[in-house]
């Protein structure tokens, strides 16, 4: 089947999509957006997190046909051209990226948290990121990055 949707502000068309295929597969293999990662395909790791109509979801659990005519925003759509979003810049600065596999999902999820809650407490950050697994960093640097990004967006830092 053919699936037409908007991704990162542009219209995308994927052909020969298998009806049981996930949005994650369509993004990575059919429309050239491999930023979202496939690490579990069962909703456990969060590395495939994207916005679907402004709500973060695991793209591995969205059927391709369900995004017809809808809006998707992936990690590739967070930066404004070459200007990184503060969340991205802070991940780099804090050293919150090691192998980087978890990073795209964490960036989208953290981006959403800060949009909804400009001054998140530590427990709120932990709860928001509870569905994103990282096997490398031990999370401390990730928390540092999210705190700093929130402060920048709130105009405090």
């Amino acid at each position: 089947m053919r699936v037409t949707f908007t991704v990162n502000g542009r219209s995308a068309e994927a052909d020969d999509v298998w009806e049981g295929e996930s949005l994650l597969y369509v993004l990575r293999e059919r429309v050239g957006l491999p930023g979202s990662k496939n690490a579990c395909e069962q909703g456990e790791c969060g590395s495939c997190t994207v916005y679907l109509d402004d709500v973060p979801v695991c793209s591995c659990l969205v059927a391709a046909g369900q995004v017809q005519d809808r809006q998707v925003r992936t990690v590739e759509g967070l930066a404004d051209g070459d200007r990184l979003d503060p969340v991205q810049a802070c991940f780099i600065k804090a050293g919150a990226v090691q192998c980087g596999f978890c990073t795209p999902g964490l960036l989208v999820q953290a981006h959403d948290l800060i949009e909804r809650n400009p001054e998140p407490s530590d427990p709120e950050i932990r709860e928001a990121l509870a569905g994103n697994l990282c096997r490398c960093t031990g999370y401390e640097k990730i928390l540092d990055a999210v705190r700093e990004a929130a402060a920048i967006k709130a105009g405090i830092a």
Partner: protein
Amino acid sequence: MDFLRPATWAEALTARAERPDAVPIAGGTDVMVELNFDRRRPGALLDLNRIPALRQWTRDPDGTIRLGASVPYARIIDELRTDLPGLAMASRTVGSPQIRNRGGVGGNLGAASPAGDTHPVLVATDAVIEVESAERGVRAIPATEFYLGVKRNAMAADELIKAVLLAPAKGPQQFSKIGTRNAMVIAVCSFAVALDVAARKVGAGIGSAAPTPRRPFEAELFAADALPWDSRADLDPRIATRFGELVAAAAAPIDDVRGTAAYRRHALSVMGRRTLTWAWREHQSSQSCQSSKELT
């Protein structure tokens, strides 16, 4: 495989009747895992995401809340925590934020996993599941009769779940779940309790400790009789303990990878005792607020 995309509820019911090989998909948080791992190859997917009514909740004239089958957990938590505190608490323990943004009660009921987190609340609060078919129309099934066995429910092959009907809380409600961490865990076992203060009744539900969720009737009757409704006195710990024992006695747990039957029984007695104590304290404090208001 086909991808069916009905735009209205009537179209969805027709498609459901015409395509018995189609699997309904709402949030996809159960269905897509099965597809991704080749555990299921249905003839078609029946996408329910385009039917606005399933994503809405409304209030009937008598106050009953009609919760559309695919209202995601995140919205139940945000919008219904005052009316449906037990369901909101259970929703908060489901998966992760991303899962709660997609999954909903209709999918929990459709999957009918013994470990589904909303089941104990639905049986404890006398929820009613509204299912519909194109041929026979609407059927209202009490939650206590909806679950038939492990991953089996009372829905016929041509029916879809439309809504869950729930009364706004008639008193404090509590939910408790045992798992290895605070997020992303399948319940080892779970428990819900709901007080109906005016009627002096106690509803309870046990999850993940039998093939289907269970109501511990003996425990409910014992607590309804033993709680100091008149004096609003502190709860005698012996009452809470006995309640917990009766809850545990009503379960039929098994040993599995998540825990032993003996552990589950023990955990249920603790959860029963604690949740009843929390609910009673909440009742006491809401009562004392009311009486101080009356005095001023």
